[in-house]
């Protein structure tokens, strides 16, 4: 009898690898973010710890781990500490169907896209719990914003993704990548430019990055939903945010930018390159733009992005039918 099915071993190894990938990328992204910020502001950024500040994120992580975990007075302890975990855990399964290369996909699922989008929705719950549990008015306001924003932006995001799925006729990320050519003009972003822009905008909003970082808008809400978190509680939110950025950009790479394909040798390195280009663009946004206002953010979603994405979807469907 073989008690342990081979599938299970596969998944366990995959999750371990994904955890490693997320952790490592989190560290790298923190460094990239701070370096980009530094250079945009004409200063060196982190420089002291390690060569060119490369070890700075490690030092920061050590600092965060070493900090006292503080539970505010009158907070709902269970909810308060559940929130960072709920925020971070769903990140792992989101990486499973990510097609780094044809051979480097943790789990082939033919509804991979649905899996990712479903788990992405959980993040809103985490922010809501965090704001609610911490017995802080700023946290509450931040949670309210997070829910309104997350729910609103999920819709155009889904619709723009659907347009691509219509074209390929599949919900599997691997198949969508396989359907695209090797050269940049054979990728989906040429056929679906509007969907690409919509997706990226919504992705920025979904991950609460500037200029849509309203749930944590520090000049208005101090730190929004994570005002009361210290140490690793804050660290987990932080890591989850970066992991979600990677997911959003990874999906964008697979859907619109041809995934692992590229001129010359196709492979995981093309995927990572494109992923990081998108990430840097996202970071670049943050250090350039002021923050939008809350009502404007929702207006933008309901009045512009949603109609546009529906229109885009209809046109795509029409073209495919013809």
């Amino acid at each position, binding site marked *: 009898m073989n008690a342990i099915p081979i599938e299970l071993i596969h998944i366990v190894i995959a999750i371990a690898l994904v955890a490693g990938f997320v952790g490592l990328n989190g560290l790298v992204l923190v460094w990239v973010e701070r370096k980009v*910020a530094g250079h*945009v*502001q*004409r*200063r060196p950024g982190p420089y002291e710890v390690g060569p060119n500040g490369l070890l700075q994120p490690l030092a920061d992580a050590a600092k965060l781990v070493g900090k006292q975990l503080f539970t505010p*007075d*009158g907070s709902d302890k269970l909810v308060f500490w559940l929130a960072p975990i709920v925020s971070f855990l769903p990140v792992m399964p989101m990486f499973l169907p990510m097609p780094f290369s044809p051979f480097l996909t943790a789990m082939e699922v033919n509804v991979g896209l649905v899996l990712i989008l479903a788990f992405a929705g959980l993040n809103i719950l985490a922010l809501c719990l965090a704001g609610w549990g911490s017995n802080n*008015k*700023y946290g509450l*306001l931040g949670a*309210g*914003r997070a829910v309104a924003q997350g729910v609103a932006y999920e819709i155009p995001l889904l619709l723009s993704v659907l347009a691509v799925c219509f074209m390929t006729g599949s919900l599997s990320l691997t198949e969508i990548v396989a359907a695209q050519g090797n050269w940049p003009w054979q990728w989906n972003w040429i056929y679906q430019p509007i969907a690409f822009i919509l997706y990226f905008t919504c992705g920025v909003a979904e991950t609460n990055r*500037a*200029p849509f*970082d309203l749930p944590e*808008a*520090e*000049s*208005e*809400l*101090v730190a929004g939903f994570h005002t009361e978190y210290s140490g690793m509680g804050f660290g987990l939110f932080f890591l989850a945010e970066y992991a979600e950025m990677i997911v959003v950009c990874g999906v964008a790479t697979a859907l619109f930018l041809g995934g692992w394909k590229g001129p010359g040798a196709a492979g995981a390195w093309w995927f990572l390159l494109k992923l990081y280009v998108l990430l840097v663009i996202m970071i670049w946004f*943050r*250090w*350039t*733009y*002021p*923050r*939008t*206002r*809350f*009502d*404007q953010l929702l207006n933008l979603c309901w009045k512009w992005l949603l109609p546009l994405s529906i229109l885009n979807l209809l046109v795509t469907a029409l073209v495919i039918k013809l």
Partner: protein
Amino acid sequence: MTRTINPDYIRGDLYTQRFEQGKRENTLILNMGPQHPSTHGVLRVVLEMDGEYIVRAEPVLGYLHRMHEKMAEVKSYVGFMPNMGRVDYLHPLAWNWSYAGAVERLAGIEVPRRAEFLRVIATELNRISSHLLWWGAYLLDLGAFTPIMYAFEDREILMDILQRPTGARLTYSYFRLGGVGADMDERCLRQILDFVPYLRKKLPVYKDLVTDNVILRKRLEGVGDMDVDMCRRYGATGPILRGAGLASDTRLNETYSVYNEIDFDIPSFPETDAMARYMVRIREIEESLKIVEQAVAMIPEGEILIKGAPKPNWKAPAGEAYFATEGARGKVGVWVVSDGGKSPYRIKLRAPGFSNLSLFAEASQGTLLADAVAIMGSIDMVIPEIDR
């Protein structure tokens, strides 16, 4: 485990208790400050909110009160000058000038012409640095992180320039009763002349990065109306008044020193919103550059301090005098009363920020929290100046 929470602790301090009276149902009392990131120091605003909308706002002042007025009563006339560098740390030279001007008016001291020009140059440079810092900090309030670094880069040059004659980078006490403390030599003047085109080249870049940015425009346009009537009621001056469309400026309306010999405009915008106030300040930087350029060209040779300038044991003649200058935030007035002794009998400091802040409570009613931050920033508060 049951916990009892001290009821006094829940009720809050005096301000919160008073504030709670007459509240509506379903509102949230939110304390913004005294340690909130966008109140720039230790201002506290008690907000009554309906969701994200502000029903009522009440600024609570006094966390940074340092009794400058009282200190004046025990210091010598000369010895009070360093205090004037610390009332408003962003535009200390306007305060320097108001105080020096008031005492000079009281004692009938004539300031040498070169000193007048030096005062104009230094004050205008200081105004630019004050506006630059406001610009950066305001955008920080609005969520853009980068501009403040660019602003500091330019400010750094200004501080280097001003450091040589004044000896300080922030809290200047450069003026003396009857002149200024030190001369600006050729090198310093040349640095200033080099700085003018440098900043002129930088300003369009900032316009591209920030002023024209659609997100910023959407956030500022039509937000925080403060019209002329409101300004009159609260006594608002400076960029707020000019942003309401009234081109009123102490430098020309009650002209002092050599400002009437220099050709410059008073920018004013009639839109009365936060964007108008923003534009006024940006245009004022350009106008200040113009003033500095002309003043450097016109500066005569001569003394920088009158002969027999007041010493620390100097006694002012009995009487009283008032002198107002245009600071970066509005009209800076100092009223000096002397009984003929070594130290002033009474000094009253008129801080523009104090009057300007009183508009906030009215202007922020019914706006979103994010708008309140935008309005508060557009007032350009310096808390030490408001509390004195």
